[in-house]
């Protein structure tokens, strides 16, 4: 089957350092692919190159089997796009905007627009300029989803959405992929990516550092685990466990870095009286460090 997105050596250099460097990526149809990285890592640049809003310096990009640049109009017929903090025609109402954009696409679907607006709870009859950031985001989602695109580009889609709407958003994303369509979303939030994505590409400083299944992502990241016991315990026994590192004993409290599953740690701790146990979810930076450590150890890639 044709990949939804396929890039080879994709590079976009600006005069300054920002951009993307030598990105090789394949996104399969029917998956939710998360593009995870800190702000300024190149996530938006990647999406803008794939949409032909900016042009690659070198390398190739194919979207839905078509060349992202040469076949841009054909690609755009089949994709939807929500920019981060999207700019819209502020003087129009949401409905006027969606109607006009539908006409631009040659596919007006008022019923689909209304249904989406109802689900996302946004009033399409108010001028866009009076809407809150979250509601503007919803209008942008409505226009991107209404024509049932084969591929959806979402740049930081849930920033500004309240938690209830985020649930609806996740529901909609799952429906999209259930129909075999594809979602490519960028985010700097690990929890967001973990909740909706099947696979994740990690990008730092314009380079694709790793591509992993979401489930594996967690396991590769160091977490900080703190166990508070009723009485002081021997730290050395814990330090000897596989995947445990940097053990610090403070009175009856034990703090350590853990990678992989916590089964051995919990079983050893259970021999003592455990007062409290905290496993702090990894920060994005820690995940990066985990991957950078790994990349340093790994042999050079054969391809």
């Amino acid at each position, binding site marked *: 089957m044709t990949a939804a997105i396929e890039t080879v050596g994709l590079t976009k250099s600006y005069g300054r350092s920002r951009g993307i460097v030598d990105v090789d990526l394949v996104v399969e149809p029917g998956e939710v692919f998360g593009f995870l990285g800190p702000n300024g890592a190149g996530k938006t640049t990647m999406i803008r190159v794939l949409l032909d809003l*900016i042009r690659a310096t070198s390398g190739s990009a194919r979207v839905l089997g078509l060349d992202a640049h040469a076949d841009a109009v054909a690609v755009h017929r089949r*994709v939807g*796009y929500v920019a981060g903090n*999207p*700019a819209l025609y502020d003087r129009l109402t949401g409905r006027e905007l969606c109607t006009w*954009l539908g006409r631009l696409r040659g596919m007006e679907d008022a019923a689909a627009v209304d249904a989406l607006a109802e689900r996302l709870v946004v009033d399409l009859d108010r001028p866009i300029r009076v809407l809150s950031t979250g509601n503007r985001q919803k209008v942008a989602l409505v226009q991107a989803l209404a024509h049932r695109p084969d591929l959806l580009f979402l740049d930081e889609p849930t920033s500004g959405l309240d938690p209830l709407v985020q649930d609806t958003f996740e529901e909609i994303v799952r429906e999209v992929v259930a129909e075999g369509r594809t979602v490519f979303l960028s985010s700097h939030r690990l929890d967001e990516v973990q909740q909706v994505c099947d696979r994740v590409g990690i990008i730092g400083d314009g380079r694709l550092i790793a591509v992993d299944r979401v489930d594996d992502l967690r396991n590769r990241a160091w977490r900080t685990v703190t166990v508070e016991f009723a009485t002081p315990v021997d730290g050395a026994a814990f330090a000897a466990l596989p995947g445990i590192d940097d053990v610090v004993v403070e009175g009856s409290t034990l703090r350590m870095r853990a990678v992989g599953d916590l089964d051995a740690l919990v079983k050893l701790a259970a021999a003592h009286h455990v007062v409290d146990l905290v496993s702090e979810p990894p920060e994005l930076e820690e995940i990066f460090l985990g991957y950078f450590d790994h990349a340093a150890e790994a042999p050079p890639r054969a391809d």
Partner: protein
Amino acid sequence: MRTEILARDLRDHRRSLLAWAVGISLYVALIVAVWPSIRDSAQLTKAFQDYPDSLKELFGGDASFDFGTAAGFLNAELFSLMYPLMLAFFAIAFGASTLAGEEERGVLDLVLAYPVRRSRLVTEKALALFVGLVGLALASTVTMLLLGVVVSLGQGTSELFAAVTGSVLVAAGTGMLALFVGAWRGSRAAAIGAAAAVFVGGYLLQVLAGLVDALDPLRWLSPMYLANGTTPVRSGWPPAQYGVLVAVTAVLLFASRWVFERRDLVH
């Protein structure tokens, strides 16, 4: 041809278009309304004829200072500067905001992620500019004609149309220049600055060329000379001058399409 973008642009500018149409028409009406009192004042005509040459050139040359005819009066008061200036003002603002302005606001990111070729976007926006200009010209010309009947203006209609056309062409050209600079640089300020500089610089060049014989051939570099240098409100249609304006505008349109297809959108 598809026209969604053209229609969107005109709708977005409908208030500004209406305001400009009313403003220009009022100005034109005022000028035409005072004509009878000027016509009947031989003294005023004589006073103007004694003006120094440099001052006369600023208001359209000798031809303007024949206040004995409506053509001379309209040339001095409208077509030598104010009428094309007002139209160019509108055209430059429109040409700069319609492409570079929308790009700076980020809204072209949305539009160009739709199945819209960039050259089509540029063409429709240029057409919106031209349609807007023709609308303003029609409103003000109808005002001139109607009020002209009331005050017995005595101005030949064909020559009037010729002069209005010259003003529309010079405004279309400078507006198209603003659109081109916007398509090339993505900056509204650069677009306005470049187009305004060419309009004002061209006007000054025409004035200087009227005073210094050696500069005479350089008149052809002045958009204002091309529009009104032959005093069309008296002498009728100048095909060569208008042809140059049309050709330059067309070249700018194709250049805009070309540069805009080939660059990154500003973010």
